[in-house]
């Protein structure tokens, strides 16, 4: 019997995946659980395992091509079985179009028309109850049927989206209808994320550019064709826009004396390197400092939550510190979980390990989830200080600049001391100025007197 290898849903924001590498070739023996294909999503690169013992069937989505969630990538066939038999078994799954080898578009879940929908009675009843349009719902049931769980999942997605759905100006709405632009795909740049006329025009132009590349330069961009963002870059663009436009930020900055911090790092570095092989960084110590300060200030270790009754917050019990890591084409924030319970050596090795995996694109979803606070350090790039965008729904992010010798006034005289600038960005819905200031004060104290970490 042919067993389908399909693209699983690896995260809530995932809608499609790209096949980056086939680890097995057609006709090659595979064992159940053995990785057969490498997939890249907007967040992670991961391997998909063979669902059964057998030989790999024809490859339906080639390397570099995309497939939607649930799209068939190949089959595991019994030895001697041919694709025809596999295709016969596919005819009971009407949602995915006939797999034609090599044609990625054919594998995309097609927009279904009314008479082609296969949904269970229970799913239809639930769809009716929730006002869900079944033509939009991805099917996960046997034989490609839409089942109740699909409808519930889709409704959840819709309600999550509609809460985030920005307002649209009347002109933009009319223009969108005229140009056939789907408002849900447009990122608003107006006040509070409101979609304006310019956004529609830009979306229409981008669509045109995407539809027929390469194009003659459109009017709006005489410098060259518009490049539609994809992958991590696109995700960063969408997230940052949303975070920055929907989160009321305020900023607090302090310059702190880094003498003790650098001394501590220099003293611990050879020791930790000898035991773990990892070079301790200022960032590692700052992770520990942040974790400690967050324990002292649980009011900052919170996340924002929308509720039916309005804005809400979740008091996080764990202190999980994310570290912003620059990639060639974007940025990811792997999380050091329960950083308050780890030693510096543990933090350093954990950090070195996730950063390395981030750079080679091997992060798992679990590496990225659960953060309650974020640390971003641009000191190594010679930045003195900067303001970061909060990684919502977290309440705060700490932006750290470089340690540099600067003139400091101490008791009426000017001294030269290594200092660094801390800039906290805080979500004013969750934290007020005074609370933020007390948290920053704790951070500063722990940096200036790091032995306090031991009390």
């Amino acid at each position, binding site marked *: 019997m042919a067993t389908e290898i*399909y693209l*699983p*849903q690896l995260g809530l924001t995932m809608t499609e995946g790209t096949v980056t590498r086939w680890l097995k070739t057609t006709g090659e023996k595979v064992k159940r659980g053995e990785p057969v294909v490498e997939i890249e999503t907007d967040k992670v690169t991961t391997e998909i395992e063979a669902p059964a013992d057998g030989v790999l069937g024809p490859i339906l989505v080639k390397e570099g091509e995309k497939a939607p969630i*649930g799209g068939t990538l190949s089959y595991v066939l019994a030895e001697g079985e041919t694709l025809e038999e596999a295709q016969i078994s596919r005819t009971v799954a009407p949602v995915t179009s006939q797999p034609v080898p090599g044609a990625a578009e054919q594998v995309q879940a097609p927009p279904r028309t009314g008479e082609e929908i296969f949904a*269970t*009675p*229970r*799913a*239809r*009843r639930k769809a009716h109850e929730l006002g869900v349009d079944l033509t939009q719902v991805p*099917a*996960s*049931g*046997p034989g490609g*049927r839409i*089942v*109740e*769980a699909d409808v519930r*999942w889709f409704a959840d997605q819709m309600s999550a989206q509609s809460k985030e759905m920005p307002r649209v100006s009347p002109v933009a709405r009319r223009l969108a209808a005229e140009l056939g632009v789907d408002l849900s795909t447009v990122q608003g740049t107006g006040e509070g994320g409101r979609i304006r006329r310019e956004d529609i025009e830009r979306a229409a132009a981008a669509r045109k550019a995407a539809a027929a590349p390469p194009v003659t330069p459109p009017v709006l961009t005489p410098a060259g064709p518009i490049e539609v963002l994809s992958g991590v870059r696109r995700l960063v663009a969408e997230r940052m826009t949303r975070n920055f436009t929907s989160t009321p930020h305020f900023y607090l900055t302090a310059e702190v004396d880094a003498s003790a911090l650098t001394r501590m790092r220099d003293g611990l570095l050879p020791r930790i390197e000898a035991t773990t092989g990892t070079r301790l960084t200022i960032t590692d110590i700052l992770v520990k400092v942040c974790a400690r300060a967050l324990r002292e200030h649980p009011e900052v270790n919170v996340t924002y939550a929308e509720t039916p009754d309005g804005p809400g917050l979740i008091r996080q019990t764990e202190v999980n510190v994310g570290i912003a890591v620059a990639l060639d084409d974007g940025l990811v924030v792997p999380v050091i979980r329960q950083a308050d319970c780890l030693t510096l050596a543990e933090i350093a090795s954990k950090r070195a390990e996730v950063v390395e995996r981030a750079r080679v694109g091997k992060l798992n979803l679990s590496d990225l989830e659960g953060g309650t606070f974020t640390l971003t350090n641009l000191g190594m790039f010679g930045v003195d200080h900067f303001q970061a965008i909060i990684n919502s729904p977290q309440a705060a992010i700490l932006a750290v600049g470089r340690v540099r010798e600067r003139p400091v006034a101490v008791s009426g005289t000017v001294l030269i001391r290594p200092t660094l600038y801390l800039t906290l960005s805080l979500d004013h819905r969750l934290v007020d100025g005074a609370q933020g200031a007390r948290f920053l004060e704790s951070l500063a104290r722990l940096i200036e007197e790091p032995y306090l970490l031991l009390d």
Partner: protein
Amino acid sequence: MPEMREITIVEALREALAEEMSRDPTVFLMGEDIGRANGVFNVTAGLQDEFGKERVIDTPISEAGFTGMGVGAALTGMRPVIEILFCDFMTLAMDQIVNQAAKLHYMTGGQAKVPLVIRTLMGAGRGAAAQHSQSLHAWVAHIPGLKVVMPSTPYDAKGLLKSAIRDDNPVVFFEDKMSYQVKGLVPVGEYTIPLGVADVKRVGGDVTFIATSSMVQVALAAAEMLAQEGISAEVVDPRTLKPLDKETILESVKKTGRVVIIDEGYLSYGVTAEIAAIIADEAFDYLDAPVKRLGAMDVPVPMVPVLEQATVPNAEQLVTTARSLFGRRY
């Protein structure tokens, strides 16, 4: 909680017969080899010694004759419990069962009643071949005027047989020959189970198994196997086909949205089809997957054990069928 002890279905049935005979002098037994031979499967062991030859009557091999005597005795006010050893032999007494016992109360405008119990055996598994291995309960469940009971545990067997004997209608009571040694807890004292009340043998949330008689154990085994995979199966035992407890069945199906009906009768035109039709009719909007059925293969039951086993649904088949109702998990 009443005091309980563990006994077999055979023992439970014997207790029910003995208790009802002690309680009501009109109750008597008739059948082949039930007295001196103690019953072919030992159900009536010792009862002739205890109640005498007048109340535990050995008959010749004459199903039509003693079934007719049972109908007649019932009409005169007795409560006969007759035994048709294998339900395959009901064929010989069908006129008495279908045209006489089932009809007389109706045709006399309610003046006559036929409080007759017909105990009979169903089920494959003993290599008894095509004429001694069938499960023909659907035949009698098809007939208005007959009640049909199919116990799966000692507790149910005793409580239901006592109710069947006290019932004023003809009741056909099916005992599965392979389940006779199934053990279970049974209260020490008096109790009855009303006819027409299903029992949820295992509570679950993802899929409903509606299983009768011999298939209840199969369904419980399959539910246990599925639990390892994170699928929670509910097992509903209707216990009586007529009257049928639709409410309990529908309630479970509405909860889970998926259902497999499993019964040892032949699949075609059988009990599973009837229950499936009721579900399709009354719980259509709650179904999240097609209604599935498992029954005996539509062939004469073979004698050779491996072939015989292949004709009867088993737990692995039920697991596979149940799994097919679940798609990809998110």
